[in-house]
């Protein structure tokens, strides 16, 4: 059983954080098909968040086909994510390494690399609104 955590400073909505953590766990093999997700009551008890947040996250997971609720018992994992993305990990990781090497050769230190990456990442995501 995984344990959720909440980063209140990340700017990401709590229910999205929960979904991300489930996906992460699936990817890393911490959650397998048939495993039970923590009950709403337990999550809410640990994190002191609104039950609707958890319900929303679980509904979204259901919609994506990753989990299914069984009335009276709980919510269970119905799929894995490892196959789909694992194959792409290798080449992506190699590309990233190359880019990092170029950045270092250009003289960027760790903080500058991180800032550049996050800024580009966010504005690419933010382009949907504007």
């Amino acid at each position, binding site marked *: 059983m995984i344990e959720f955590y909440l980063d209140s400073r990340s700017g990401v*909505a709590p229910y999205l954080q929960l979904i991300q953590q489930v996906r992460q766990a699936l990817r890393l093999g911490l959650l397998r098909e048939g495993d039970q997700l923590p009950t709403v009551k337990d999550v809410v008890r640990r994190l002191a968040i*609104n039950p*609707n947040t958890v319900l929303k996250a679980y509904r979204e997971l259901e919609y994506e086909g990753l989990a299914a609720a069984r009335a009276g018992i709980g919510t269970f994992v119905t799929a894995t994510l490892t196959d789909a993305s694992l194959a792409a990990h290798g080449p992506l990781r190699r590309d990233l390494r190359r880019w990092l090497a170029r950045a270092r050769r250009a003289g960027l230190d760790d903080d500058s690399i991180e800032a550049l990456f996050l800024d580009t990442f966010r504005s690419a995501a933010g382009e949907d609104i504007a």
Partner: protein
Amino acid sequence: MTAVLEARGLGKRYGRLWALADCTLSIPPGHVAGLVGPNGAGKTTLLHMAVGLLQPTSGTIEVLGGQPAAGPAQLARVGFLAQDAPTYAGLSVADHLRLGAHLNPGWDARLAHDRIEALDLNPGQRAGKLSGGERAQLALTLAVAKRPELLILDEPVASLDPLARREFLQDLMEAVAEQQVSVVLSSHLVADLERVCDYLIVLTTGRVQVAGEVEDLLATHHLLTGPRRDPATLPASQHVISASHTDRQTTLLVRTDAPIHDPAWTVSQVGMEDLVLAYMSQAAGSRGRKPALEAQR
């Protein structure tokens, strides 16, 4: 669906001062509603009118479709936790549970007992000797174990240390998850409410500044930064809540349903705290106006 709290033009006057004025709210059921505002904003006044401790001077208020404190049946449907969690100092924890059992037909003794055990409270201990957090938990047990449909809490964690605060909110959320009870709680700190509330009401100087589902509010409010500009030049669909300028730059917090196309602006999300602060400073800047906004679904 009946709103858990329906206020129309609600007002309360003490002498010449209106502690609450022109308050119109419709809080939907199944939510944890946060009432936030500075001290003296009228939060306690509003909540006391909701539980029948105060009579309105003007307007009407309905709770769960009925008049507050109209009779035993109405009283049984609403659980109330007053500010500073009053308890009888001379009565023990067990005595308080007996109090609840004798005075509430819907009392769930099993639930009360389990909660007290889970909280590690000594049943024989006098309430006067409990810590602030323990008293708040005892008072919450009393409110929850009568199995109400609505819980109203007046600044429940204001005087608690951070650990007690977290534990209280954990318990409260667990009760909400288990019993499907709606909650209205007030606080003068946004941080207390951010994690638990999915409906927000901002109250300052006796007036509602904004009320709506947190999701909608966060989706329709944006922070715009860009070159120095007069807020009046913005399109009508964008309502400016707060504005600040340097000689080169303008930062605006706007509410809008439509997408923002102007490329001059950098658009970013607004956190709940910034949203609340913007409305509170707007109210402070323009006293006398009546900006009672509501986010539409």
